[in-house]
């Protein structure tokens, strides 16, 4: 199999396999999670589950002032990474062309300069987060192999994409193959690792908020 055949495979069969695993795994996991449901409360709540749930979904975005310095670093670097990742993923012209091909619609792209900045910020934040995870004794103790695996799976698409736009170190065909393959690995792993938080984050925020919003029974 030469370089071109490998590229055809990752753009075709490989992507179909990755998309099938991702969509099947993720739709199963999320729907199953929701179907577990919560035990019906026979007592009337003093507060409101829905109000509490929705409030927490929103308020968890702004917990910075209440965090320790270590938590603040994680929070800020985490935000920089996530925002950089989203901007790069959803506003690079080539990616929008992909979404248009799959979903049938697209949206305006951001200028390349803005994408460059967002990608570099995301990469820098990821490196800082990894260094912090390795240096900080508490974070290191709390980390298991999955944390490092998902870090690598998230880092590689950004890195190979950045290299691809500038043709750094390898030829375009090689870099494009590596970039798509790294995204496919991310898609395949996502439903079975903590990367599933891309869909479950707001569900769990709602759950926590709803439990807290119950506030005991009415008297």
């Amino acid at each position, binding site marked *: 199999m030469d370089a071109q055949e490998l590229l055809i495979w990752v753009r075709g069969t490989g992507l179909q396999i990755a998309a099938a695993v991702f969509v099947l795994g993720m739709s199963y996991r999320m*729907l199953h999670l929701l179907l577990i449901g919560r035990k019906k409360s026979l007592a009337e709540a003093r507060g409101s589950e829905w109000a509490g749930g929705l409030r927490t979904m929103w308020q968890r975005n702004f917990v910075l002032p209440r965090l320790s310095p270590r938590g603040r670093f994680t929070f800020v670097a985490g935000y920089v990474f996530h925002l950089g990742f989203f901007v790069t993923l959803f506003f690079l012209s080539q990616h929008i062309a992909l979404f248009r091909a799959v979903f049938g619609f697209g949206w305006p792209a951001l200028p390349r300069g803005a994408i460059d900045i967002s990608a570099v910020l995301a990469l820098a934040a990821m490196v800082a987060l990894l260094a912090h995870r390795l240096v900080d004794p508490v974070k290191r103790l709390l980390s298991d192999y999955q944390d490092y695996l998902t870090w690598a799976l998230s880092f590689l698409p950004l890195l190979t994409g950045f290299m691809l736009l500038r043709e750094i170190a390898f030829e375009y065909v090689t870099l494009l193959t590596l970039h798509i393959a790294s995204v496919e690995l991310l898609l395949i792993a996502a439903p079975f690792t903590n990367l599933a938080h891309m869909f479950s984050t707001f569900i769990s925020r709602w759950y926590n908020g709803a439990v807290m919003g119950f506030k005991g029974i009415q008297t």
Partner: protein
Amino acid sequence: MKEHETLEQRLGEQGVSRRAFLKFCAALATMMALPPSSAGAIAAALSQAKRPSVIWLSFQECTGCTESLTRSHSPTLESLIFDMISLDYHHTLQAASGHAAEQARDEAMKAFYGKYLLLVDGSIPLKDGGVYSTIAGRTNLDMLEEAAKGAAAIVAVGSCAAFGGLPNAQPNPTGAVAVSDIVRDKPIVNISGCPPIPSVITGVLAHYLTFGELPALDELGRPKAFYGETIHDRCYRRPFYDQGKFAKTFDDEGARNGWCLYELGCKGPTTHNACATTKWNGGAGFPIEAGHGCIGCSEPKFWDAGSFYTPLSAPAADVAAVAQVSMIAGAGAAVAMGALDRAKKQKLQQSREKLTVADLKGD
């Protein structure tokens, strides 16, 4: 042409001055990325070169490669160089037909055994004993194997001979393969393209006449001098790619402004060829200059790489349909598992022994 004639004599007869000939040699040296000083060496070698015997075999092909070589622009020094080889067998160009034609091939193969150049265009069908393409009652495979034995070197002209090309595209009904899939013991140079650039064909022939060997090749057997860079690397629209300026349709403002054709499916970034520098039709232009993206015709399997109009960043297969089926399957599995969970829960609840006050008292 007389057997003993050299190229210089031949060109002189056709009214080409020595100055023009030297200019051509300098251009050839530049085109093949050789040092400027080699122009003199090329001129010296070419001017004394005797015409080597060339046998051109056409298999599963469309004659586009021959058209490219003979009709691209005429008459030029390239075509005169082509005159300089003794083309002893070529279906399309030779006057002889039938047994006379086959006899010419046999005679040339015997007379120049071990010395002739074998040019092949078209792929070779292997399925069902190779019956899908025969010449004078013989399969292409049989003819290639026989001709390859006595060849000094083989030039696979066009993507069909080099990589299998269109006949090799899925589902490959004739079992078509490339020359290099059959011949393993001879030097082979692949001049891919659908069709290949004429000056690349003549450039490789000139290199062979000058140095007596084939030029440096890449991992796919293509001469590095012509296939060392991608169309994208040398495209005049490249600055627009770097700025993220893309034409969205063939007639929008971006297209009129000459922006990058990536989103219209241009395969320039993954295609190695000299179109952007050597150009076509006597240097008039190349497809991207005409407003159409590169289709990647000099790369293996380019027919199977998805639509010519699908961007490289988009899937080459139907991912949306796969995702839809997967979503239904995933949701169905979740609902089924949810129902099982519920049934299990109910069963457990029913079988649960109720704790009574008496139990607590330990009576």
